């Protein structure tokens, strides 16, 4: 399964760019076309096979969502049970909770991350200290390089009830220890903070690149007119990066129903206390699958998520197309 928003990916911002002169392709009979393009087809073959096996074949597995799956009978032998799986997911299951959590967490991630990324990019573009910039940028980018497993180990070091650094410091002030794992209401803030910790450095690079692209003469003109720093930021820098912000925002909104599985799984795991506030669609599907309790229901939840994702990405792309046709994904 492709995980496009699993941060370790360069950004794909524009699909269409350089306008290239069209090349006339002579119309030939199909057989001749095949022979003429044989080498291209050979080059495409491995990737095509890959996608057929790992992406298209599982799409056929959507049938599972409408079956009472039994390992012995397989996908094609198991009996149908109509919409029972969906019914179970929506009525007895936790469809609403996990959908709400997925959506709200992603909204919070998008808002907080974007605010911090833009703020830091603006600051870094304005301050002069070369060494300072270098050091802070390096350290801000560092968490991007570690996995969520390592992040959860770091988290344990800081916040473990018995041994955590935080509680050690609290103890030395004779203050009461905090048991973060027993305190569900703190988790939305913890998760948002961790997500920001890990990805703000990475994201601010994008805005910094966009700010460096602004014509310096505009700033010089503003200097001559006597503009102060705040005015330059307010009237030059921010308006110039609004297009980038909108694109990043819309692309992020397109993935609003796809949760950051690594973050939620590694940090929260199967901690029953926390699940009501931390369970997202991805972790729910995963747990249902692993406990093997109900393959059909977890498949149904998966299909439900896929459809939500498809709809949001189509809407987001439409919106990007309306704002900036060059940046639309397709």
């Amino acid at each position, binding site marked *: 399964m492709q995980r496009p928003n699993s941060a370790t990916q360069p950004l794909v911002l524009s699909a269409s*760019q350089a306008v290239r002169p069209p090349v006339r392709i002579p119309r030939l009979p199909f057989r001749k076309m095949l022979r003429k393009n044989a080498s291209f087809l050979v080059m495409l073959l491995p990737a095509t096979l890959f996608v057929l096996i790992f992406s*298209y074949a599982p799409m056929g597995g959507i049938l599972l969502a409408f079956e009472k799956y039994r390992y012995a009978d397989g996908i094609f032998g198991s009996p149908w049970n109509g919409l029972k799986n969906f019914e179970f997911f929506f009525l007895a299951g936790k469809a609403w909770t996990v959908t709400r959590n997925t959506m709200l967490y992603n909204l919070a991630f998008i808002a907080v991350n974007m605010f911090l990324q833009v703020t830091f990019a603006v600051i870094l573009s304005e301050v002069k200290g070369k060494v300072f910039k270098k050091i802070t940028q390096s350290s801000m980018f560092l968490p991007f390089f570690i996995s969520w497993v390592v992040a959860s180990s770091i988290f344990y070091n800081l916040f473990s009830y018995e041994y955590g650094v935080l509680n050690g410091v609290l103890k030395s002030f004779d203050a009461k220890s905090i048991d973060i794992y027993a305190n569900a209401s703190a988790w939305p803030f913890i998760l948002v903070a961790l997500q920001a910790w890990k990805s703000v450095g990475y994201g601010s690079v994008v805005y910094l*690149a966009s700010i460096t692209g602004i014509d310096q003469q505009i700033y010089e003109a503003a200097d001559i007119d006597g503009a102060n720093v705040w005015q330059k930021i307010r009237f030059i820098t921010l308006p110039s990066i609004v297009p980038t912000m909108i694109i990043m925002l819309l692309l992020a909104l397109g993935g609003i129903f796809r949760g950051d599985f690594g973050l939620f799984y590694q940090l929260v795991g199967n901690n029953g206390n926390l699940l009501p506030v931390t369970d997202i669609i991805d972790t729910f*599907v995963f747990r249902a699958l692993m406990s093997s309790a109900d393959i059909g229901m977890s498949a149904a939840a998966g299909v439900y998520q896929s459809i939500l*994702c498809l709809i949001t990405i189509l809407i987001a792309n439409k919106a990007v197309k309306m704002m900036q046709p060059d940046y639309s994904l397709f």
Partner: protein
Amino acid sequence: MSTQARTSGSGIPSTLTSGYYTSDRILFNVVGYLLVGLFGLACLVPFYLVIVASFTSEAEVMKYGYSLFFRKFSLEGYILSLKNPTLIIRAYVNTIAVTVIGTAFATFLATMTGYVLQRVDFPWRNKFSFFFFFTTLFNGGLVPWYLLCTQVLGFKNHYWALVLPGMFSVWNMIIAKNFMKSIPHEINESAIIDGAGNFTIFFRLIVPLSKPLVATLTLFTALSYWNDWYNCMLFMNKQEMWTLQYYLQKLLNDAQALRMIADKSGISTPFIPINAMKMSLTVIVTGPIILLYPFLQKHFVKGLTIGAVKG
């Protein structure tokens, strides 16, 4: 704004002349340095704390918890992690092998596929592009994919399970395609006239011209293979097949696994220095990345926006 700044309209940014430190600038710098500095510190300090904790003995951890500063230097965690190092060396070897093989294949496939799909004289490029791109819009979800991998492809406890799922990424392919669009098509045409086939053109002309792209894809793919625990968690039951990340995950969360690891290293069970080991293993797992980080960082920064070149 001072008068000096106002009169320096000679192409030199006025901020470089003497009128730089005006009151608004001072306020901005104080706020700016403070905010960025604090966040930078927040990103760095946890790493420092883990390193401190990794050099602490279990007894100290039990008594004081993980501390802010080095209390008493101890290699206990490392010694016990490495005492009977079979498992951890296996995990290292597995991770390195999977990363190298996976990255080589993934970079090659993304580049080659992207190349074909941007060739303007390939008649079916739009159809194929859509065929690939559609998989990013819609998928069957985790369950069918998992059943396919385990029931049909037999991924359980097979090393290919760690390499194959990441071997082709449509997003990387799109990045490659976008990058290579900026290479003039005339290069292909002249090579064709000289009698070169498409494979020759790709390997001899396009790849050398796409070095920044290949470097970027290699780095990002290698990082995602190195940091992968997901496939290992789904498919690997045997300890000797674990990767570093999954080994650490097990150590962090699973008392049962910990006991098994300890048994192999010949420590009597009640005295496993769990908390010291957790931190030293974290350092062992992250070490290579932190060591390579200063060299790699600028390439990552450059590569981040490589798929977004305009023009």
